[in-house]
């Protein structure tokens, strides 16, 4: 097994990650209200994607591995949506505790 990715690509990824970190901080100083958390998490998602694709070689992996990654993300989303769904719909009926 030879190297799958060139060293140059790693360095580029590294630079992109640093740039994104800097932009997270800078955008954080802007008052975006509710949006600021979304932007921060969105940039974090971009960074995570870079790490997964280029450091962890997820792009070059078998379909099976991609399925595992997709599954993990999907299951996390199931957990969050169905739970937060309860909290967001509480009170819709207009009387306490329902």
């Amino acid at each position, binding site marked *: 097994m030879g190297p799958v990715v060139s060293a140059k690509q790693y360095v580029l990824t590294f630079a992109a990650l640093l740039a994104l970190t800097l932009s997270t901080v800078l955008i954080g100083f802007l008052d975006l209200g509710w949006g600021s958390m979304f932007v921060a998490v969105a940039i974090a998602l971009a960074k995570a994607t870079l790490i997964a694709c280029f450091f962890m070689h997820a792009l070059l992996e078998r379909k099976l591995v991609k399925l595992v990654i997709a599954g993990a993300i999907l*299951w996390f989303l*199931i957990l969050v949506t*169905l739970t937060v*769904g*309860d909290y967001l719909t*509480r009170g819709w*009926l207009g009387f306490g505790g*329902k």
Partner: protein
Amino acid sequence: MSTVVKIPTAETPNYLTEERGILSWLLTTDHKRIGLLYLASVTFFFFIGGIFALLMRLELATPETDLVSPHTYNELFSMHGIIMVWFFLIPSIPNTLGNFLIPMMIGAKDLAYPKLNLASWYIYMFGGIVALYSMARGGVDTGWTFYTPFSTIYSNTYVVGAALGIFISGFASILTGLNFIATIHCMRAPGLTWFKLPLFVWSHYATSIIFVLATPILAVVLLMIAVERIFQVGIFSASLGGDPVLFQHMFWFYSHPAVYIMVLPGMAVISELVAAFSRKRIFGYTFVAYASVSIAVIGFLVWGHHMFVAGTSVYSAMYFSLLSYAVAVPSAIKVFNWTATLYKGSISWDTPMLYAIGFIGLFTIGGMTGLFLAALGVDVHVTDTYFVVAHFHYIMVGGTIMAFLGGMHYWWPKISGRMYPEGISKLSALTVFLGFNLTFFPQFVLGYLGMPRRYAAYPPEFQTLHVLSTAGATILGAGYLMPLIYFFWSWHYGPIAPPNPWRATGLEWRTPSPPPKHNFEVTPVVTQKAYDYDAMKEELGLV
């Protein structure tokens, strides 16, 4: 099939005789030996949990608390639940029969990570010892559900110890699931494609998905309980504005799929038994295979049905109820397909088949009462009553344990190289079936009448039904003791078993009983589908 089956003689070493001495067991990486280590451990925990259950049933024979104090009673049902769920039911079939059989069924020498397999047994035992220790120190009285804020603020018992024991053994579950998934993906014999796999393997694959994706949530929520209790910071308690219902969400996100961890391996066994003892391919193999996976997946979407009166929103109750009905469909498909397999079969009444038929009947009742609990309006009355207790015992005891015992009888010749005694085993199957129904059917009526669960004392009008239940529990206990005794007997004195006593088709039957250390002398090449009796009729001598 190129494998030549040799009749085992004293000279041919098998996995039991290849190495000897206690260390050769404690340091083994052979999946078959680890399966037996698990078998001994889960049997031990089963009888501990069983003793707790029997004491509870004796206490409940009268309406007053006269045998044990209410506090002791609360500890009894808590420890019964903890031991039975995490130290018996969850590892029962996957870690014993699954461990023993999956590599053989797929024609592999071992699991993908044999050392990890051994490590998971040690982790499981360590967790079990921690849990038992905290019970010996004074027990735990939170129920197996650890609901906050009772578990984090108000209980004066060894909650952290018990939670730690479960937390540790959770890693054994994760590692087992990981091992099975990797094994089934990477270690199949040449030619063995997914749709040639036995349904046992499919079902265990589905189970492993749940192991791997649900157990971490249990680990993290128990960790949060421990942090809250030790540092007295409110994560789920109101002191900081936390919400106890969030704990319930996280707990059931694990614990509902955990129900499928318990019953899917039972279904795995039943598929094998029904095929072998009808000498037929399972009716609608593909449907049953997909049903296993869809149970595992949809099973993750229904946890909220444990919380319909817990103070969640009415809207979330709606979607959880609807999804709960959706998960009932694949279970129904399985029951129908097993039944249809009998049609025009060649049905033998050997003990494993008796257990299998018992399973189908009891699982049907258990599953159908689940429809009652999923119906929102009905659930309001019957939730947290004996109706729920009866319902999940029909699934777990009537389902999983029946399947476990059926599977143990079926594969006993392979495991031990000897046959079990047929007469007494039929008697025990019958005793278990009758004892089980007598124990748990009255509990449906109790719950319907409104008897809440986890009551040490109860109004006198419920006594008749409780007495029936206690009587049944005694019979059930005797039914479980019988196999324990005759399996020990058979291990030493049973008649020598041929490689394939049932004339079944699985790869595990095409190697000597007991199998050699690496399962097969020559790696098998698979050319036919599962349960293909037509293709194998010459080899099996069938006409």
